[in-house]
């Protein structure tokens, strides 16, 4: 049994947030009051722009998930599961509500459009997702590593990057003085 099984009601009447958006054909679920959108790559920026217009003025979180061990996870019909997902949490202060966006990112081409020009606050979060999960955000002004050293190899939060696989990397220690 899943949380989704318990809570999702496939409502025929559209949710008021979804109804207020100008984009048609959006796939979404509603669970415990939170709407989760599953946009395609091409809908992603249009959707976030529209949500920003619909009072979701702050991007409170952005992170990436590697579903390597669950490539066949259950998703709403019409969404083809990919290895990576970028998960965005947007917050509306006036509605006191959050929405979630789950964007599918294919393994062979891990690129996503950057939210920087819509939400400048996503800058550090996208750099973190790039650093730890290897998702490249196109048009991001500073797509560099943020937590790991700049010459680090690999993306540690990927599921095929096992714990302890790489010996602890330190830069060459200075010799005795």
């Amino acid at each position, binding site marked *: 049994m899943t949380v989704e099984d318990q809570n999702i009601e496939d409502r025929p009447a559209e949710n008021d947030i979804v109804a207020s958006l100008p984009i048609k054909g959006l796939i979404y679920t509603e669970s415990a009051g*939170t709407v989760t959108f599953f946009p395609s790559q091409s809908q992603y920026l249009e959707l976030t722009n529209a949500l920003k217009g619909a009072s979701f003025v702050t991007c409170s*979180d952005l992170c990436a*998930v590697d579903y390597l*061990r669950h490539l066949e996870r259950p998703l709403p019909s019409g969404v083809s599961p990919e290895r990576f997902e970028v*998960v965005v949490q947007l917050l509306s202060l006036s509605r006191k509500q959050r929405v979630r966006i789950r964007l599918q990112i294919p393994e062979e081409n891990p690129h996503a459009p950057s939210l920087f020009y819509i939400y400048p*606050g996503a800058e550090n979060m996208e750099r973190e997702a790039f650093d730890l999960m290897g998702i490249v955000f196109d048009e991001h*002004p500073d797509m*560099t590593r943020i937590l*790991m050293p700049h010459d680090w190899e690999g993306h540690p939060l990927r599921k095929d990057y096992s714990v302890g696989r790489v010996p602890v990397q330190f830069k060459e220690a200075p010799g005795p003085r």
Partner: protein
Amino acid sequence: MSKGDRENDLELNPFSSPDGENETDVDEFLPNTEEADDYVDVSEEDDPDEDETDLLYAALDIESETDEGDQELDFSSATSPVELLIEQGAVLRLPEDAALDALDPDESEASFGEDETMIINLGPQHPSTHGVLRVMLELEGETVLRSKPVIGYLHTGMEKTAEELTYVQGATNVTRMDYLSPLNNELVWSLAVESLLDVEMPPRATWIRMLMSELNRISSHVMWAATNGMDLASTTMMIFGFREREMVLSFFEKTTGLRMNHNYIRPGGVAADLPDGWEDDVEVIIDTISSRLDDYDELLTGQPIFRQRTEGVGVMSADLALALSATGPVLRAAGVPWDLRKDMPYLAYEDVDFDVVVGTVGDTFDRYAVRLNEIRESIKIVRQILEKMPSGDYRVQDAKITPPPRQRIDQSMEALIHHFKLFTRGFETLVGESYVAIESPRGELGCYLVSDGSNKPYRMHIRGPSFVNLQSVPALLRGSLLADTIAILSSVDPVLGEVDR
């Protein structure tokens, strides 16, 4: 800017100076090898001086050792005008055309030559960076033109570690992130796990959590006042702040057994009930601190030197704060009355009465005033908790989630098995994902949890308020004086344990 451009630009970066240049500098400082030969036993096969020279080279090659490559800040003359405009324009949330009009490239930083500006490093080993924050500042005289925080010096991969720990062990991991408000970290973790568990918290557990969370907010803000005072050369405030924090920490020690990193709030409730006589302890704490807050007012709030150093320094508008995803006191000081305790209540915050403190200007003084008055509001909440604390159980009575009492283990085989299973395998949650956010002393502390139904989280992501608020630093520092940098950095209150995780 594409990756390729960035690499090309690097060649212009004076920090990555070619090795040859370094060597010529180093030669001047090397011992004269011919002279040194007189004192050396020539029978040795290896020339010891050669080794020594190599070691000296290695020791003096600090630039390449500490280089963070393209994570670092370039001179503005080495940065394209378009990129500079993006840096400003996007942060100011101007549409592209308006940004081009408002920001004349000739007037902007790009017009400064390389010899007119200077890049200096503040940190990572600097007492005012509250840890290992490194801020690269581009200065023109004493004015900060641009700045960039370089972080990651404390990164220990805690999100990866969390995937290897069971839900029972997870709290010990998250509590080490923001080491000034560990109980809030445990709280957000526990709430996130419980959202995937389908359990109902006994009221006393909820109220104990609220009490601990508010006391932690007091200790964190008092600690901030202490370090902020020290940054602004008020050592008295530093001593005061640590003295008050000590009282709260003593109570934590009495309750949880530890002064920090408590692992007290756990999925399923709290680890132990409050100690006997806790009401008296808490009352002493809040009475003392509320009277000492007036001392703080006398020492800092009305003091002309403090006001001159903070008023009008590092001003941030509400729009800018929202665009940069700032939360907590940074956002509220800009005049946005947004507090998750009030606006999206969790625990039992609906049942207590308190005010959300907001600033008007959004300068460093406002951020100080917001935090100081938040201590007063927290004291108000703690007083109500003292009155309303319900009796009952301090955790869920579900042997699958919380351990049985110690005495039961000696008597009941079932209890022994439950105890063993819980601390070896832990418990499983429902399949799903959940994002839970609470108001930590620094802002919105969120936990995004993906569960695949096993005993460990499939993915755990912490949205650290310090990490996100750090993005405000370049916006706040732009155009300020170098001396004000310390005051501004301190007013954002980043905790590097949480920034780097």
